[in-house]
């Protein structure tokens, strides 16, 4: 049963930020509500006031902006999935959206809500980390931007202050010679929390890796990057043995737990297998053949 609360429907971002500033932390924003209503029913969160930010125009829209892609914090997964710009410039995010929940949830769930929830299994997180995305947080005091990698802290803990809203995410347009891939291993093909998810973005020139990003979900208390593997790859010729080595390094970088879905050991092994596969797929897209 949903506990009682007041619902505020602000007309503008400013109004929403005011309500948050006045009442936080007793006030929580609600976007799609696909996490928050579940958490309120279970008693995990008991906000006195809920601010509906779903319709705020300032949180909407996907556009090019100064050589970057800018996505509003209130953009839904369904919107990301069907957006041409996302498909063209960030296919790794599109792939994650395609494996996200089910069509009904995708219509409501927002990218901001996904990240703020702070789940290690948040499905947009690995791709956005691999894209080196920046997150924009806005409060009455102004805006700040930080790399998404600095946003995640622990399970259900992020760098967001209670008076802040996620207003946008930004990442750079891909350079020529970029390849990427995402895979979510769940216990079933839809509507399953990931057991392990892996996103890879590679930039290469004539088969030599210039930059690598490897990010994983559900294998640590927060979505994580395998920085040791990324460093290892940089400057290397993209080939099978290198991928295997990078995959092995990735398995060392993760710290999974055992739960009802899978054992830590399985998650660790899958981190390596899937990383290797994603590297192979991404490398193929960089346009270079071994």
């Amino acid at each position: 049963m949903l506990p009682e609360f007041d619902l505020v429907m602000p007309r503008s971002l400013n109004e929403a930020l005011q309500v948050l500033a006045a009442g936080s932390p007793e006030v929580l924003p609600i976007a799609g509500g696909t996490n928050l209503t579940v958490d309120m029913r279970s008693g995990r969160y008991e906000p006195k006031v809920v601010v509906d930010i779903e319709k705020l125009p300032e949180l909407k829209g996907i556009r090019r902006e100064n050589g970057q892609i800018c996505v509003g914090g209130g953009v839904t997964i369904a919107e990301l999935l069907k957006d041409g710009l996302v498909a063209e410039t960030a296919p790794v995010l599109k792939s994650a959206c395609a494996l996200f929940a089910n069509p009904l949830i995708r219509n409501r769930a927002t990218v901001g809500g996904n990240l703020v929830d702070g789940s290690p299994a948040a499905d947009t997180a690995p791709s956005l980390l691999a894209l080196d995305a920046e997150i924009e947080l806005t409060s009455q005091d102004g805006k700040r931007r930080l790399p998404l990698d600095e946003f995640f802290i622990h399970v259900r803990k992020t760098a967001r202050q209670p008076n802040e809203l996620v207003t946008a995410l930004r990442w750079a347009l891909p350079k020529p010679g970029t390849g990427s891939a995402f895979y979510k291993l769940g216990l079933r093909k839809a509507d399953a929390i990931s057991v392990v998810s892996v996103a890879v973005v590679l930039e290469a020139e004539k088969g030599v890796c210039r930059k690598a990003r490897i990010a994983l979900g559900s294998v640590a208390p927060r979505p994580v990057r395998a920085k040791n593997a990324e460093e290892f790859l940089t400057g290397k010729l993209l080939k099978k043995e290198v991928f295997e080595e990078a995959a092995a390094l990735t398995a060392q970088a993760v710290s999974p737990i055992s739960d009802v879905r899978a054992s830590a050991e399985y998650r660790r092994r899958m981190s390596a297998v899937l990383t290797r596969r994603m590297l192979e797929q991404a490398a193929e897209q960089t346009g270079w053949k071994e």
Partner: protein
Amino acid sequence: MSYVGKSITRIDAEAKVKGEALYPGDFNLPNQAYMKILFANRPHAIVKRIDTARAKALPGVLAIFTAKDVPVNEYGLIMPDQPVLCGPGSSKPYADRVRFIGDQVALVIAENEEIAAQARDLIEVEYEDLPVLTDVHQAMESTENLLHPDRGSNVFCHYRIRKGDTEAAFSQADVIVEGEYHTPVQEHAYLQPEAGIGYIDEEGRVTIVVAGQWTHEDRKQIAHALNLPEEQVRVIYPAIGGAFGGREDMSIQIVLALATWRLSQQGINRPVKIIWSREESIIGHHKRHPYHIYARWGATKEGKVIAAEVKLIADGGAYAYTSTKVLGNATLMCTGPYEIPNVKVDSYAVYTNSIPNGAFRGFGGPQGAFAAEMQMNKLAERLGMDPVELRLRNVLREGSLLSVGTPLPKGVSIAQVVENCAKRAGWKQTSNGWEFDREKHPSLKLQKSNLRRGIGFACSFKNVGFSFGAPEQCQATIELRGKGEIEEAVLYHAGAEVGQGVHTVLIQMAAEALGVPIEKVRLIASDTATSGDSGSVSASRMTFMAGNAIRGAAKLALERWRNEERPAVGHYQYRPPRTTPYDPETGKSEPNFAYGYVAEAVELEVDIETGQIRLLNVICADDVGQAVNPQLVQGQIEGAVVQAAGYAILENFVQQNGEVLTRGLSTYLIPTVLDIPDRVESLILEYPDPIGPFGARGMGEMPYLPLVPAVASALHDATGVWFNEFPLTPERVLFGLTKSEE
């Protein structure tokens, strides 16, 4: 005018598609009160004290009932070993104990659901915890820690089969295959969680509108616990959102009736409503039994199985439910549809502090079939013989003796069913017998570095109707109205429509038997106030039993119609041939009066690096005798295959020390439309049953039975590894493959 054999549209289709059909939770009556149940939420304890004072004082609370309010505090389909409410002041010894987390301790009735829930949480219960037993082997041995101290043992059922001389036969066998199998728990996961409304009807009857599988048995159990004559209790089923055996035992029936009745005794004449959450449903109703099965089979090099020794241990959980009957079935099915001259089976059902286990589609058949078919496929491998050929050398034929020393009823078609299925799947009959040429099936060869494909085969038989001497009957009443010609034919029948389509089939069979246009047949169903006892919708029995009852009633009604009686009423009770229980020493018995026969071939693909399985194609051949409504038959085949596919590769019910870790459908995963087999091909075969109505056999369960062993055999074909345990989750598969490499 022929209605049997036609795929007419289900009579409930339109209302269900439009959302107009009313399920138990949809009923609301003026002035209704709400009920919440306080569950034990601990696996084993004595309830020392229940203090309801604070809860009662909450404004809006109408009443709280505990064990002392239950006149006869016991129930159970087979044996009354479960308290209606656990706690002190019971009318029965040891009813002050809770034995699993879903045991019910108190009922709260209040103005609304919120208050009822609040009051429930204010009830103070003092427990004295008892040791928790969850391992069947430990439970079998324990003499100190007894779940039911009045019974002297945790083993509450044991069957023996002794046919021939297995020891002598093993010494003559050319190959012997031993296997140790473990089958998992499965949750029914029906769409509609338990719900209902209770009221006192215009004739003063305690009435409940609920979902169940047998109106008259529900009524009997309620009347027993409330110590009322059965006529004073009325049970009505509206639309039911799935059952699969999960509604055979009581969930809310007795407590809802109890609350309604006790309230009215206090002068509060208000309807009482309850809806379980998914979590309450998952901890509150029984599951499919997990089994440990130890099998040792021997065969000659000519491919004749000559000996089978099997030991089965079923975890019954906290109470008996239908365990003894489920075990009876598994005991018969564990040697497969084969004529084996020497058989020794010992089977046990054991109490533990896990959630009780009971009826679930297949009713012990799937567990027995898993062991039997794994043994057959392993024997085929060891003998270097084709698995279809090996089966055909051993299947039961007309007159063959079962393990229990008697022949099957006439109409044995397993050989034809196996041949039909094998042919469709690509097997060929050659001069060397049946063969499958892998080279001619390029789809199986696809081998990306990490993908392997395989094909597997299995077959089974499934009884139709109650077994082993259980009283079996079904009633139908037909009333013909009109003057010169029949204007309306009203069929009164209690059979439960749980989604399988039986009400449509009842009408089809009535129209056929009466020779009237189907539009003239009206069904008044599932109300103890209007129909005689039909028995349950279980054991694949309703089409078979009701069809025979309807034919009898139609014949009588037509006779009376011809004799100018208006209305002309025919009432008929069908009783099938008698069955007999297991002989306690040898198991000799006539277990069943009818069977259906089934075979399946499965093609799958496995990712050997992640352990993920994809089911590519399932061919399911079923002898249904006569498909009364072929489309509904196909629906049952596809539904059963999909449900069994979940059981095979996905569904994983996790219990730890009596606690349930998968308390919702986000952790207990059932297949989505993307997870089901890419293709399911239904081969409907019609070899008539000599005593089935219009030749029909029952078929709701049998497509479920061979799927898991067929999947396991396909996985072996793909990887060379036998998996003796399931569900075949990616992790189990991967570690199984890795282990076999080491």
